[in-house]
């Protein structure tokens, strides 16, 4: 309840009365009232926020504004920062005028930074002398923002704004031009959304003499010297050009232009080069100064800058040679030429062959070196070295089981927090399966932190924990079920509205729920599906031993165990499996290659056995089981008794906005046999495809990266369907339109030499090589390197990969060729493979677009040089000889053929 008159006015939303009450208070009176006023404000604000959320408005905005004014009148700036008090009301000025606090500058900076107060109010405080003049970034940036802010209340243009507030032209405008801005407000961002209103206003004010032109030219160059990030630096170079400096003005600032040549912002370097060239053309640039400043340009990555700089240096050297330069004492002509050549040397390190060649040609010309091809000089440095390919991360070692409850608690805690790696998750499941009945001393004490953490993660999602949305939720549910001996109730409402969890995550959830049910009842026994080796593999003999020891197996556990059977050492296991009884025993024997034939009623079990037996082929005896269950093989979907066939195609579309046409290509997966209407949760091999149901946008961004990794080990013997989902995910985001950091998980298994690439794996690798994201691209390059080293990517596979990419629409070819070029530097074997595969792919299916062909021919040229070989006579050389014109492709073809003739 309000205790004072001020609090009464606050709670009744009486802003004017608040101001009136506060007007004559001393500072001591204000501070005495502060604690209870702050308490009232907190209650009002909380009530307002909660009412907003519930859609009712018992405390309205005027009430809050009145309360804000009261706080402004009694609190210190620290207290205001702590409770985040805004100052929305226009009467803010009156309160502060009456109070005149010493901290007003600090408050204004904080309030403007957070946009808690209007700039106009702060400005009024300054004009009337309540506040000293501010030069903090927040004040200046909000000023610029206010100038651009067209509103019915402020209809004036930016120029009018500054003319109306002409005192701002004295200091504030210059201070504004001396700061970088922030991610919210900068001159660049303001102009981007106001059609360059600020730049045009400043230009007009300069032209009309309100802002001194000379100072304006200097201040823009000084800002460029500060090397702001490219986005923000751009405004200053553009504005400087907009001012249109005369030759005289440029010449006066030649030192600064030359200093900008060493900027780390590429467009600033180009801007400075343009200026230097303009001055040079007018004969006002001393070549000695130019040569002393130009060297940093030749370290830059920008090919265009190299080209311009080389042109400039060439012109200087030519002029000097012709005696056209009158030298000061510092350098002789010969020394000048040496300095110029020395400045160009860093260009020989450039990644682009063109740039290196141009620099080499220039140096040869003036150093009088005969023009013989010496490719060692212009080799990119990385290619001179034979790099060892990276070795595998994961050693192929058996997984050691958890041995005690203490260790189990540690492993479960780690898995709960880190959601991986998959081998640890499976260790935890296995440990819990075997040790769930044990209750050592201090059990409750020991597991207390784990249970608390699991409950925190579960929050109000306990009933959904086994849906398979995230690893954390699944494991948290398992922990709670084990330690509290209960299972989650059936969900009272659907999972997060319309969102559905699709795919093999559902199988994982069901499998863990099955385990949770057993753990809740303390039914300890070994987990059949626990991998014995990294990668999700189970030693067949171990599985048979587990089944012999515990014949009563759980359903999902058995299905998972069968799908994880290693393809090696099955004979010995099959012999032992003859002792296994029942339908499970028969299915395991069938999975191991037994000739007993498929017979039984459990469709899911036999499908798993069929896929484990021969992952890539149709199973002719499957029809027998299907018949027994009343289904047909094809109606069950792909990768049941019949192997799935996957095809990736592209759907092209275009969109025209403001006269610009944008083309899009999205991947589309088709699968045969087609997917059934609904997919049973006990058919993980079919669930793998669930994400691709229906045409158009198929992607359901529900899956979590760690869950994706876990699903990769459901069926390690055949990851084609899993890779297909990866193709769709990465292919749909090749240009990184969305930050989908988890998609890289689909590429990870390809690193391992034991992973079969198959056609889908190869497509996924190709997509990775074309991806914009450096993480995906670098990993794809590593896979390429490893694949060539371990023999999975022979020339025919590589050629197939390249042909596939060549046939795709809207691919940024340079991304892939750059990565191939880097991979070819790893060893001569890599270079030879990439060379032969490129030739073969170009013969079979060259890229349609000439630009793309040019890029690929550049790659071919590079690898031919690396391998010291030439283009062989054959279909490709014939085809290249027919290429005419002035395109990049034609030029490269000419070069390749001339090299071949030489």
């Amino acid at each position, binding site marked *: 309840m309000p205790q004072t008159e001020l609090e009464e006015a606050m709670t009744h939303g009486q802003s004017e009365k608040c101001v009136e009450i506060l007007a004559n208070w001393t500072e001591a009176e204000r501070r005495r009232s502060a604690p209870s006023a702050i308490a009232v404000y907190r209650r009002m604000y909380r009530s307002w926020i909660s009412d907003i959320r519930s859609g009712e408005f018992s405390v309205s905005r005027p009430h809050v504004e009145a309360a804000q004014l009261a706080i402004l009148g009694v609190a210190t700036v620290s207290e205001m920062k702590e409770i985040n008090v805004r100052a929305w009301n226009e009467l803010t000025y009156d309160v502060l005028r009456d109070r005149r606090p010493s901290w007003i500058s600090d408050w204004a900076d904080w309030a403007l*930074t957070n946009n808690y107060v209007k700039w106009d109010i702060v400005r009024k405080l300054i004009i009337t002398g309540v506040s000293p003049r501010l030069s903090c*970034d927040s004040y200046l940036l909000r000023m610029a923002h206010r100038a651009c802010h067209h509103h019915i209340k402020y209809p004036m243009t930016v120029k009018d704004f500054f003319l109306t507030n002409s005192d701002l032209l004295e200091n504030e405008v210059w201070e504004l031009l*001396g700061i970088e801005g922030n991610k919210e407000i900068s001159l660049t961002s303001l102009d981007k959304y106001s059609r360059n209103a600020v730049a045009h206003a400043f230009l007009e004010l300069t032209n009309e003499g309100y802002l001194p032109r000379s100072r304006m030219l200097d201040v823009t160059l*000084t800002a460029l*010297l*500060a*090397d702001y990030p490219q986005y923000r630096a751009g405004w200053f170079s553009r504005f400087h050009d907009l001012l249109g400096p005369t030759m005289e003005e440029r010449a006066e600032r030649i*030192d*600064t232009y*030359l*200093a900008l040549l*060493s900027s*780390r912002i590429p467009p600033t370097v180009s801007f400075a080069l343009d200026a230097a060239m303009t001055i040079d053309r007018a004969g006002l640039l001393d070549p000695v*100064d130019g040569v*002393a400043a130009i*060297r*940093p340009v030749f*370290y830059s*990555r920008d090919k265009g800058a190299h080209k311009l700089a080389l042109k400039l240096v060439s012109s200087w050297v030519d002029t000097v040679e012709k005696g056209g330069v009158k030298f000061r004492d*510092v350098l002789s002509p010969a020394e000048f030429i040496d300095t110029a050549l020395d400045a160009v040397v*860093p260009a020989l*390190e*450039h*990644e682009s062959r063109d740039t290196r060649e141009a620099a080499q040609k220039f140096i040869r010309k003036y150093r009088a070196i005969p023009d013989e091809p010496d490719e060692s000089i212009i080799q*990119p*440095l*990385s290619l*001179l*070295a*034979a*790099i*060892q*390919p*990276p*070795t*595998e*991360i994961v*050693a192929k070692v058996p997984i050691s089981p958890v041995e005690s409850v*203490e260790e189990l*608690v*540690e492993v479960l*805690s*780690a898995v*709960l*927090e*880190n959601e991986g790696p998959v081998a640890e998750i499976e260790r935890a499941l296995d440990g819990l399966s075997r040790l769930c009945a044990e209750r050592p001393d*201090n059990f409750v*004490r*020991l597991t*207390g*932190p784990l249970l608390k*953490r699991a409950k925190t993660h579960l929050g109000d999602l306990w009933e959904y924990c086994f849906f398979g949305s995230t690893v954390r939720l699944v494991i948290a549910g398992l922990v709670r079920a084990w330690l509290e001996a209960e299972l989650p109730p059936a969900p009272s409402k659907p999972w997060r509205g319309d969102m559905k969890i699709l795919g093999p995550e559902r199988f994982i959830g069901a499998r863990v729920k099955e385990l949770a049910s057993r753990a809740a009842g303390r039914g300890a026994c070994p987990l059949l599906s626990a991998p014995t080796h990294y990668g999700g593999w189970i030693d067949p003999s171990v599985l048979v031993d587990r089944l012999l020891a515990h014949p009563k197996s759980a359903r999902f556990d058995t299905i998972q165990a069968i799908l994880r059977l290693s393809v090696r050492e099955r004979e010995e296991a099959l012999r032992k499996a003859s002792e296994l009884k029942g339908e499970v025993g028969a299915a395991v024997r069938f999975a191991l290659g037994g000739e007993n034939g498929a017979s039984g009623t459990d469709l899911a079990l036999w499908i798993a056995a069929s896929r484990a037996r021969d992952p890539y082929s149709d199973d002719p005896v499957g029809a027998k089981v299907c018949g027994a269950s009343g289904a047909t093989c094809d109606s069950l979907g792909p990768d049941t008794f019949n192997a799935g066939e996957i095809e990736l195609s592209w759907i092209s579309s275009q969109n025209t906005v403001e006269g610009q046409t944008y083309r899009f290509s999205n991947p589309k997966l088709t699968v045969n046999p087609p997917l059934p209407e609904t997919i049973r949760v006990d058919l993980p091999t079919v669930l793998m495809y669930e994400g691709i149901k229906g045409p158009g946008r198929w992607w359901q961004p529900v899956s979590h990266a760690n869950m994706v990794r876990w699903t990769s080990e459901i069926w390690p013997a055949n990851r084609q369907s899993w890779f297909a989902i990866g193709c769709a995910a990465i292919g749909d985001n090749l240009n990184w339109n969305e930050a989908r950091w988890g998609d890289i998980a689909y590429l990870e298994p390809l*690193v391992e030499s034991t992973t079969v690439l198959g056609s889908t794996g190869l497509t996924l690798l190709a997509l990775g090589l074309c991806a914009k994201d*450096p*993480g995906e691209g*670098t*990993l794809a390059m*590593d896979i390429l390197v490893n694949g060539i080293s371990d023999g999975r990517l022979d020339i025919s596979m590589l050629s197939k990969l390249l042909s596939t990419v060549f046939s795709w629409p809207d691919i940024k070819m340079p991304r892939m060729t750059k990565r191939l070029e*880097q991979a070819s*530097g790893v060893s001569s074997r890599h270079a030879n493979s990439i060379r032969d595969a490129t030739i073969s792919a170009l013969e079979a299916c060259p890229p349609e677009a000439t630009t793309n062909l040019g890029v690929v021919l550049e790659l071919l040229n590079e690898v031919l040089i690396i391998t010291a070989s030439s283009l062989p006579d054959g279909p490709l050389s014939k085809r290249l000889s027919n290429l005419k014109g002035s395109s990049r492709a034609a030029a490269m073809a000419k070069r390749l053929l001339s090299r071949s003739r030489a």
Partner: protein
Amino acid sequence: MSNLNTAVDLDYTYRYSGLSSLLRDNNRNQLSLVTSPECGSSAQFFRGRVNQPKRTADLLITIVSVVQSRFHVPAAMLGRILLLADPVITCSESFVRFEGFSSCCGAYARLDLLPDALEGDRLTSGTTNVDINAPMRSALSKLRDGETMDLAVGAEGLAIKHDGQELIERQVTLPSRWLRGFVEVQSFQSNMALSFEASGAEFRRFLNALPKSFKGAAWVSLANGSIRLSSIASKGAVCVGGIARLRVLQPVARYADKVRIYGPREIGPDAGMPTASNAGATGWEISTSDSRFYLVLSPDVWRGFSGEGQVLETLTRKSMEKALAVVRASLRWQEVIDASDVVSRYGLKADDVEGALAQLAVSGLIGYDLSEQAYFHRELPFDLSLVSKLQPRLKGANRLLDDAAVLLDRTANPVTAWVKSGDVEYRVVLDGDSPRCTCVWFAKHKGSRGPCKHILAAQLALQENKDASD
């Protein structure tokens, strides 16, 4: 000068008698670096000439770039305030060192100007702040190769006429996170070893090809002189988190004669296959003929050095108190502190001397030179006496001890403790060098980011127990 407020952050006032400046007079440049008069009101460190002005200027600018960089903005941190932090300069008998620490607390830079870089009079040894303001930075960037430059470093810069004038003051609040990171990065470096070395040209190629953004850990390795970036581990590779931060070196890479890359000691060239879990900070040293530039990066862009807890165990050790006093007394602005010499001269244990050095580093009294693999004496101009004691985890551990929340079971092998914190008890196993705990911190990091407060509390309790029984 400074005081420690209740929020642990340090309210610090930078004071200068004037602003650093670069004056051009008849093609002769005069660089005046004004330092804080902490080492004496008229402390002058150096007067003389810079032999390679353009290069030195660019290296100095890069130190400032690192100081002003915010590779990551942690929630609840006002980076704007930290941008006001100035670099620190140390002048000793033959070296001049500039040190800076990024606003995000994850990158440390140091420029060592070796004896050949400067010619002139080295007047005093000491460490203090140095003003490097924006106009001077702009002026420095205009320097060209071949120009000459005089240098004066001291409280009064070049102009002696500041006597009687008011000092220029700038007050900032330095968060304890930043201060702790600045000092702890020294101990981090002492756990690093040279992983490989490459030519300057190769390093430039590597930098040019570096992606603008690279999420997660990148592996950098060397084979036959070539630096290779990969997303998977290989033998001898170092793991670099937030590798795009290296792009800050681009402007000075052009001066590199050679580059040395340092990784965690256990991932040296002779070690086995590294994994992402034992990845740590990396050090990058650019060598020129007369200077060395170091950039030390935290294990990831969002991980500041202060949260890594590498020195926490050292700070709990009481056995090295004697060594600490002796080592501290032996500090005389040495450019290289020879630990083995201290051991033999004073008859101390090598472990205790190492621990004492680490503790002195955390107190801001010594820095670490990766190239020499040794500490050097310098005293940061901040009052850090309390900061090291206010390590959040250490503070938490002491509070647990005060609350008698630690129950030791010395009969168990290894020693086990139950630590009550909140409404649960955590089980700590003090298993030699690999203690374990059942808390969330340990579950997440497994000791890679230092011990949790429960382990620290158990270790402290064990020490107290031992002391009592002794």
